[in-house]
């Protein structure tokens, strides 16, 4: 997992900084973004293995970012994250190519497990609750 590069996107800056710091403490290369715009910008600048996306964000939303990633960077695995478990979002996400769907608040250990599974090519992950 050490060689992986993660991009964590959420509109809550406090959440992003905490997650990035915790990833760093575990020796994982994690980058944070607080909007869809910033995420797309970062994606253009560097390469990532996994993107963790909040569905609901002001401006460019998670699903739109996902659409762009699927089109431009099909090798990047995307994990969606939402504050409300809408089955519709889940379904759309999966159709657009997301590999997993998590409900907030996400436990970091769960997130890392999902990331690992996504990278190993296993579908799913704790999608429900």
């Amino acid at each position, binding site marked *: 997992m050490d060689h992986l590069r993660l991009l964590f996107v959420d509109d809550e800056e406090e959440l992003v900084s905490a997650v990035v710091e915790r990833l760093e403490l575990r020796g994982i290369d994690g980058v944070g973004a607080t909007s869809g715009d910033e995420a797309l910008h970062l994606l253009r600048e560097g390469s990532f293995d996994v993107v963790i996306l909040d569905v609901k964000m002001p401006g460019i939303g998670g699903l739109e970012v996902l659409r762009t990633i699927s089109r431009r960077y099909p090798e990047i695995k995307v994990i969606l994250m939402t504050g409300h478990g809408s089955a519709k979002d889940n379904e759309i996400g999966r159709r657009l190519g997301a590999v997993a769907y998590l*409900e907030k608040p996400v436990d970091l250990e769960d997130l890392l497990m999902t990331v690992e599974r996504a990278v190993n090519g296993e579908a799913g992950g704790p999608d429900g*609750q």
Partner: protein
Amino acid sequence: MTEIMQGSAETRDLMPTADLPEPEAPGREVPESAYRRLRRMVVLATAIVSLLPLVITAVINYVQFHEALQAEAVDPMARLTLNTKRSLELFLSERRSGLTFLVYDRPFAELCDRAALTRVISNLNRSLEVGAFVDLGVIGDDGSQICYSGPFELEGRNYRDQDWFHEVARRGAYTSDIFLGFRNSPHFAIAIKHDRPDGGFYILRATIDAEMLSEQILTAGLQPTDDVFLINRQGIFQSPSRDYGEILGQVPLPVPHYSPSVDIVELEDDTGHTIFMSSAYIHNSPFILVQIKPAREAMGRWFSLRSELLAFLFVSACLILAVILWGSGQLIRRMREADERRAALYHQVEYSNKLASIGRLAAGVAHEINNPLAIINEKAGLLLDLVTVGPETDHQERLVATVDSILRSVQRCKKVTHRLLGFARHMDIQTETIDLENLLREVLGFLEKEAEYRNVSVSFQVEDDLPTAVSDRGRLQQVFLNILNNAFAAVSEGGHIGIELAHEDADHVAVTIADDGVGIPREHLQRIFEPFFTTKAGAGTGLGLSITYGIVKKLGGGCRVESEVGTGTRFTVVLPISREG
């Protein structure tokens, strides 16, 4: 499976609220008295409309029949009385005419000869078919008997002081009352006054056997039930009566008023029997002809007809009333059922709307809380990471414990918000054909330990040929686990839980889980589907049953609950059956 276990943990907390309200319970109940009032009005109105014409017709018939039958009974009686009156009058007039003929035909001197008088009696009796002349006497204007022929020695006797003498002198003719004469048999007298050429007068007086009068009456063609007799104006019998007394006795009936023809009255005699009395005054005599007919005989047909009429009326009225009572009962019952169905439907819709809006609110709140919760979660996690990774400090242990406590609280919050969202959101339902008995036995497997530990017995009752259901296996497990958990919490040690599977209707199967536990108060029954409704503050989220309700609705079924405090609770889940199966 984790999901189910979470659900079970939660419902156990929820238990005090127990089971469900009845979504089908009427929302707005029409008070019992309104139905009773309505029924009274329906019965009254229908009864009046149907019974009134019947009663009116019966009364009209009654009066008409009565009049017709009375006329039928009375008319022949009047005819008979009139005929008898005429024959009696004829009888008397014949005898008067005989005497009148004599006084004009014979000179006074001849009438004063006793032998001649005896011959005259004989000739009179011969000339009239029924003569009946017993004696004949000639009385002078001074009242003394001049000549007499008959069984007594009356010659020389003076009648000047007697009433009848003055009567004849004044009116010229006279018929006496009946008296006991010769050989103590009833007789009456006829007297005729004749003026003499010298200015005086004499009276020819004959005594007639009254037996002849009685015979006249008896030959008139009476019916065996009738009684006919003569009385005088003082109410003394002038001929014997079969039922009312002997000759010359007092008549126990009122003397009829004078009428030129026949008079008929209905009255009660001295023995209390109702009778018809037909009477006629006999012209030129003190006699009144009386004919008596018992009303029972006269109106016999009427009495039987009246009984039939009344019986018919009574039976018809009873039948009509019975039909009205039955019909109105049915009507009101149907109406009430319809009202109750409508109220139940209304209640259900209202309840669904309420749950839906609470669900939307809950989802909104949960979503808003999830974001800060996520931050708290990550910050606390970071704190824990830092404490664990960094150099050892004095408070290391307390810090770790504190952060753990924060993280546990976050987990609790997360559980609540996820349940809330689960209640509100559209669930993915994956239907498959399910053998409900198997499924329930599977679910019971989770509770085996508890049942064993608390000595709770569980029984199964499955109807034959029970169809399979079409439903979501995971959701159904959640639902039944939830309900069974409630049941387990409600029963005390050694309690019993019964599971019944049966047909609900053609398209549904019903799973009933009944316990003999504490039961639910009525006021709680109405509310236990509502999210956050719990009677044990702080111990549960109050979401278990609202989720159960939401799932069952989503699966195309319904829930109902019956409960009585102290007796137990019956929770029924109705599910659609499999079409293919």
